């Protein structure tokens, strides 16, 4: 790396960089743009749900059909909202951006283990996201068979599905390279003294997440290849014999099984849930420890719970499939594992809640988002229990209850944690401070409107409203009593969109502000704060590679000279 000190052009420095910090920022900006876009798709859909078949304002012109959102396009937007938010938004932000930027810093490494591979994985992600976007412009529109792409529907769907599959293959390859990199970095590049049990929890969560991505994604890649074969080479892997479409029996060979796709898909997609939530746990842990000024409660139980969670997440996938008729004994097995996996989640949440006990809490913006995360994730987790039991799942399956459940986990859960992370590490990445007043407004309005969007979904779901209705349930008698909630949710969603302006304005103002010159404004203990400048040095991160002498959360140690003792302090 030492040969890189000559002046670099804009392109080599910011675009085709191999520096983990630049790549982290590239991931961060790209994924935030996609999050906003994916959210925009949902705001269009919510208009149709609140006011069925009336022209959508502002964007009606590009929808055709007199500004009314056509039902086929509603399906497309639903698929793309899910795909974009998960695969182009949350995972790249939580794992690509935060993981890339802070894992090397926190373990005292000068870069990732494979810098060129790192850049490759970003550009593959970028390419995959462009392919996904191309889907909107092919005949028949973007993929429209549900974000889960269940065959046989997905096998006979319009071209958009093929584009979606190619996009997924790119994204899977990208996250594969990214996960190898994080794993190798954590295993090989921990600095002297940084033993496993001295790792910050954030690094642990990224490490376990990387394992999940490494091992859970390839079966989906296999499934994607099989579905591409079905669509392009005319095979029948997911096509049963004698399938009738539009009154005609299909001429394909048959003998395949739609259930096979579901098994392969959920073998990825359940661990994917923990890919979404584990980095959030990591960020929240850092923020809580820092702002309560005391050690985190039960470091070791947190670590073991997360490892156990990672293992268990591979054997719960078929709890998404109770209604497929796969057999009751298999169902019983997956109910049991599903109930078991709730134990480590509760251990983690309890440890974080207990960490608040007796702390002198600083209620700054990152802390507010972290505190908001705890009950919101709690709601998301607890509402999952009835879905994990086949008997109650039969009633709730494919209703808005499910939508409410997983959005509580991911939106006010993970996304709040990601905001906490952005506000917490902004001073480190830029050397500047964010505006506290705008940050707090951002938090309180987001908190209120998030609940305004998702809480009514439980009520609608319990009443039996299906999750996939273009008209929001207008034609169903059993939905009549809860139909008024559609407007509540939609207005909340648009106001939630407006509330994000506080964030955007805050970022712009703060980036234009002056550098504060503070290296460690939060008084944190980990290496990213104590041993580098803000922002860290271009290549190499550290003036002198630090040595670690103590655990990551030594706050308020009796007789210490300050209320935090850096990991790199001798003693």
């Amino acid at each position, binding site marked *: 790396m030492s040969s890189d000190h000559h002046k670099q052009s804009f392109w080599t420095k910011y675009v085709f960089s191999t520096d983990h910090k630049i790549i982290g920022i590239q991931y961060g900006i790209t994924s935030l743009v996609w999050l906003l876009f994916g959210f925009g798709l949902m705001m269009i859909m919510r208009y149709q749900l609140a006011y069925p078949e009336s022209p959508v304002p502002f964007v009606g012109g590009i929808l055709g059909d007199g500004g009314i959102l056509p039902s086929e396009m509603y399906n497309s937007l639903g698929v793309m909202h899910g795909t974009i938010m998960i695969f182009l938004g949350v995972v790249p932000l939580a794992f690509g951006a935060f993981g890339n930027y802070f894992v090397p810093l926190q373990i005292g490494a000068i870069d990732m*283990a494979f810098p060129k591979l790192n850049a490759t994985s970003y550009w593959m992600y970028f390419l995959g996201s462009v392919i996904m976007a191309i889907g909107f412009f092919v005949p028949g529109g973007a993929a429209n068979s549900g974000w889960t792409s269940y065959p046989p529907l997905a096998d006979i769907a319009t071209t958009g599905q093929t584009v979606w599959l190619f996009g997924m293959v790119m994204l899977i390859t990208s996250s594969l390279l990214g*996960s*190898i990199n994080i794993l190798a970095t954590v295993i090989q590049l921990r600095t002297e003294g940084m033993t496993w049990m001295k790792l910050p929890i954030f690094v642990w969560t990224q490490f376990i997440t990387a394992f999940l991505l490494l091992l859970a994604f390839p079966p989906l890649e296999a499934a994607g*290849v099989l579905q591409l*074969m079905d669509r392009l080479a005319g095979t029948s*892997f997911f096509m049963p014999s004698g399938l009738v479409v539009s009154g005609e029996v299909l001429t394909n060979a048959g003998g395949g099984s739609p259930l096979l796709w579901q098994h392969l898909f959920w073998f990825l997609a359940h661990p994917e849930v923990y890919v979404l939530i584990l980095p959030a746990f990591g960020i929240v842990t850092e923020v809580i420890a820092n702002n309560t000024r005391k050690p985190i409660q039960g470091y070791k139980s947190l670590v073991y719970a997360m490892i156990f969670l990672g293992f268990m997440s591979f054997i719960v996938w078929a709890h998404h499939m109770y209604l497929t008729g796969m057999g009751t004994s298999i169902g019983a097995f997956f109910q049991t594992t599903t109930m078991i996996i709730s134990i480590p989640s509760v251990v983690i949440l309890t440890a974080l809640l207990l960490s608040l006990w007796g702390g002198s809490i600083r209620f700054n913006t990152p802390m507010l988002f972290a505190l908001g995360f705890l009950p919101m994730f709690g709601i998301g987790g607890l509402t999952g229990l009835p879905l994990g039991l086949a008997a109650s799942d039969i009633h709730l399956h494919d209703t808005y209850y499910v939508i409410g459940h997983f959005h509580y986990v991911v939106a006010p859960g993970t996304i709040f944690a990601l905001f906490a992370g952005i506000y917490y590490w902004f001073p480190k990445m830029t050397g500047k401070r964010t505006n506290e007043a705008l940050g707090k407004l951002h938090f309180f309005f987001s908190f209120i409107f998030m609940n305004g969007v998702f809480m009514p979904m439980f009520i609608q779901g319990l009443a039996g409203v299906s999750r996939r209705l273009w008209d929001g349930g207008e034609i169903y008698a059993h939905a009549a009593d809860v139909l008024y909630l559609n407007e509540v949710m939609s207005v909340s969603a648009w106001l939630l969109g407006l509330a994000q302006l506080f964030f955007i304005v805050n970022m712009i103002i703060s980036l234009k502000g002056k550098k504060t010159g503070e290296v460690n404004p939060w008084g944190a203990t980990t290496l990213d704060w104590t041993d580098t400048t803000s922002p860290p040095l271009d290549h190499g991160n550290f003036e002198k590679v630090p040595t670690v002498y103590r655990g990551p959360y030594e706050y308020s140690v009796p007789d210490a000279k300050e209320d935090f003792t850096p990991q790199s302090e001798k003693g």
Partner: protein
Amino acid sequence: MDIPFTVKNRPDTGLYNGKLGVWLFLASEVMLFGGLFSAYVFLRTGVDTWPVGADILNVPLATLNTMFLISSSVTMVMSWASLKLNDFSKFKLYAGLTLLLACAFLVVKYFEYTAKFDHHLYPSTNNFLGIYFTMTGLHVLHVIGGIIVIFFFWMPGAKMWESDPERFVNRIEIVGLYWHFVDLVWIFLFPVLYLL
């Protein structure tokens, strides 16, 4: 500053970065092919009749191909061992042999595929042929990838032997690990598709 352990082993893991990286990559490859083998089992057990591979596919040719791949794994190890013994010309010889055997595998595979097409046996004919073409096709892509990388280190990339020999030996070791994996996948594919 240079990234540590790119060439030398880290004492507590006993690995250099690249070797760990390729092992992790192979773990994900196991899951990829594992997913496909599981799909094979799922499809086969889900129907009443499933053809016997030997009735449709050419077992003698596949046996020949198995020999080719196993031999190529041996020559791959020899090429790495030659470098370890500081014998660059032997490395060239064995890496060249590996390439030759890998290409021979592809030629046989080409004749197998075209023979099927001549008899109007396509992936769409039935799910046995579908999974046969998908799995062997993906394996062929892995073989082609291996050929490209081995060729690179055989010809243009071999310059590194002069500039940074230790690193070059490591790279050959990594390529070798990948190549053995590709070989191993075939050793599973052969009985599963052709014999069972």
